[in-house]
């Protein structure tokens, strides 16, 4: 029984990291209908930023996790830069497929750029301890502080984000642009600004996810982004891409399945199981669990 509960907790922790990343995918997809393959690499960017700023932050007498603020800023800038330099020109001219290929190219670019920077290089780096180690016990089940903090912070962020999209002017503008770009323009919304804002928020979430991930696994490498990103993306598609609650749901589904496969079957099959679920869901409900099917107009 305690194994079971432990597995659930691990699943929730993984799930909340996936959900945070999935939100970034989903927000960008919702607004420009593009799988931002580079989004996973924003996590990597965030991770390295944290590694490099932690000593600085500690020297200033702040707690280590404060490095996330720098990561948020850097990731937001990288996200906005990607949109302005690569995605926008392609969106103007090209087809859906060329936008997708551009996204793959940007992902390659970020990964390989990181490897080419001497301070980063191809070998994994180990991060400092970010949150206080240890935990507490309830019955026979251990709750690590890191796990609890991860789940709580993710939940708070998700709720804030949901309120933001529902209640604020900017949030409404984002939803408006994702419904209909030209109508949004007519309503006086600056579409380009809204898209850039979406990228900034999504990338900032990736930075937070990087912190959560590194609090648990303090090891970072340049292709970390694509490994994590693919699973988070699966979460977004699973829940119904473009739908914010869908991303959260998908994140937890993927996290739980991965955790259960790892502890009850085999860790080497976890990826295959995650993809198998995606395939089954897509075949039964092509738009994801919470998605709506929209046919092409003839």
């Amino acid at each position, binding site marked *: 029984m305690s194994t079971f509960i432990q597995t659930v907790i691990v699943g929730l922790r993984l799930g909340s990291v996936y959900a945070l990343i999935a939100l970034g995918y989903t927000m960008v997809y919702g607004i420009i209908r593009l799988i931002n393959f580079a989004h996973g690499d924003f996590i990597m960017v965030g991770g390295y930023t944290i590694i490099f700023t932690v000593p600085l932050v500690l020297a200033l007498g702040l707690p280590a996790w404060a490095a996330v603020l720098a990561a948020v800023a850097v990731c937001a800038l990288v996200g906005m830069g990607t949109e302005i330099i690569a995605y926008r020109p392609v969106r103007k001219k090209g087809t859906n497929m060329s936008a997708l290929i551009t996204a793959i*190219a940007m992902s390659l670019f970020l990964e390989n750029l990181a490897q*080419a920077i001497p301070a980063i290089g191809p070998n994994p780096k180990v991060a400092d301890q970010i949150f206080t180690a240890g935990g507490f016990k309830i019955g026979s089940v251990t709750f690590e502080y890191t796990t609890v903090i991860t789940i709580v912070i993710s939940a708070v962020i998700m709720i804030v984000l949901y309120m933001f999209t529902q209640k604020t002017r900017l949030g409404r503008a984002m939803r408006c642009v994702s419904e209909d770009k030209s109508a949004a323009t007519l309503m006086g919304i600056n579409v380009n600004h809204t898209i850039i804002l979406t990228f900034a928020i999504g990338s900032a979430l990736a930075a937070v996810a990087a912190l959560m991930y590194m609090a648990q696994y303090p090891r970072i490498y340049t292709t970390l982004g694509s490994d994590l990103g693919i699973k988070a993306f699966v979460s977004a598609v699973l829940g119904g891409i473009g739908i914010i609650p869908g991303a959260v749901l998908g994140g937890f589904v993927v996290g739980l399945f991965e955790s259960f496969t790892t502890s009850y079957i085999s860790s080497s099959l976890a990826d295959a199981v995650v993809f198998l679920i995606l395939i089954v869901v897509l075949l039964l409900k092509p738009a994801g669990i919470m998605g709506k099917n929209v046919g092409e107009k003839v």
Partner: protein
Amino acid sequence: MKNNKTARSYLVNTLVIAAAFILFQVLTGLFGSEGDFKLVLVPSLWQCCYLILLAASLNLVLGFLGQLSLGHCGFMAIGAYTAALISLACERAGVFTDKAGLVYILIIFGCIIAAGLLAAVTGLLVGIPALRLKGDYLAIITLGFGMIIVNVINNLPFCGQDGLSQGSAAASLYKTGLGFGSKAKVTYLWIALVVTILCLTLMFMFVRSKYGRAIRAIKDDEIAASASGINVSSYKVLTFTYSAFFAGVAGALYACANSSLSTSSFAFTNAGILNSTFVVVMVVLGGMGSLTGSIVAAVIMFFVNYQIANGSWVAALPPFLNGVFKYPMLVYAVVLVIVIIFRPRGIFGTYEFSLTRLPEDVKKARARRAAAKAERKEAVSHG
């Protein structure tokens, strides 16, 4: 008259290819045992062969059918492991003892064909469900299947030995019958060339028939294609299967040319060069919808990779540029974005090089440029 022209171009192409092949055989006979020829040129040709097949086969799906598949290397992995395992089984059963003679050659061909067929069957099984989805969803589901294939191979009990295992544990493939050493690569280079030429021919024949027309129509407009009586889903699955076959063959050639197999070489991305993303890069740069473009792109990119890995000029560069050239994907990523922005259909677009038509095309292109120039001039004088 038009028929004569077609017949003439078939004849010219066949003759040129045959002549090149014979010339090559002669050269191999003359210089086969010499240093650079044996150690650099021949291994390079092997690599070019499977890269060409890989790019051209993905182009059928990506360029002609217009569907983004991100798990192409998964099919290559199936081909490579199938070929290696069959040859291993044959050797253990004592079908051949030394790597020579007619029986051995037959086994190589058998491995290649089996590799293609198994990859094609997998392609069919993947394609039937996956191709019900479109665009982004298809991309992600093929990525998923690619990862599952690699994951499954990793977990097969009989793949973990004799150079078939994952990563560093790999012993030598030489033991398995395939995995040619540099001498065998020279001896059997003709097999790689014949197989590549044959497969490319089959792909050209496919593209220039009702099948090619149907899939290009599907790329342009699926709804109009089905309204023209095309069974869209079955043509999609057929193309996907056909493409997987050639990826499998490429995998078999890969198993011949490399001393060990590791599933990480067939992943979506990895630190190396061979992965599904790289194949997409080759196809896009070469031109989505141009088989000859894929061939040219594969050869050029191989050359660039080789130069970056081995060229003395790279070592002579100032240290801050070293990193850039150590990771050629960085350069490719930038080139890819630029190409997509300025030539969304790839460098050669749908243009096919042709031996018989080349002079004509050059003339036409010149005329077009001149016309454009005149137009610009006129616009300026009007403005």
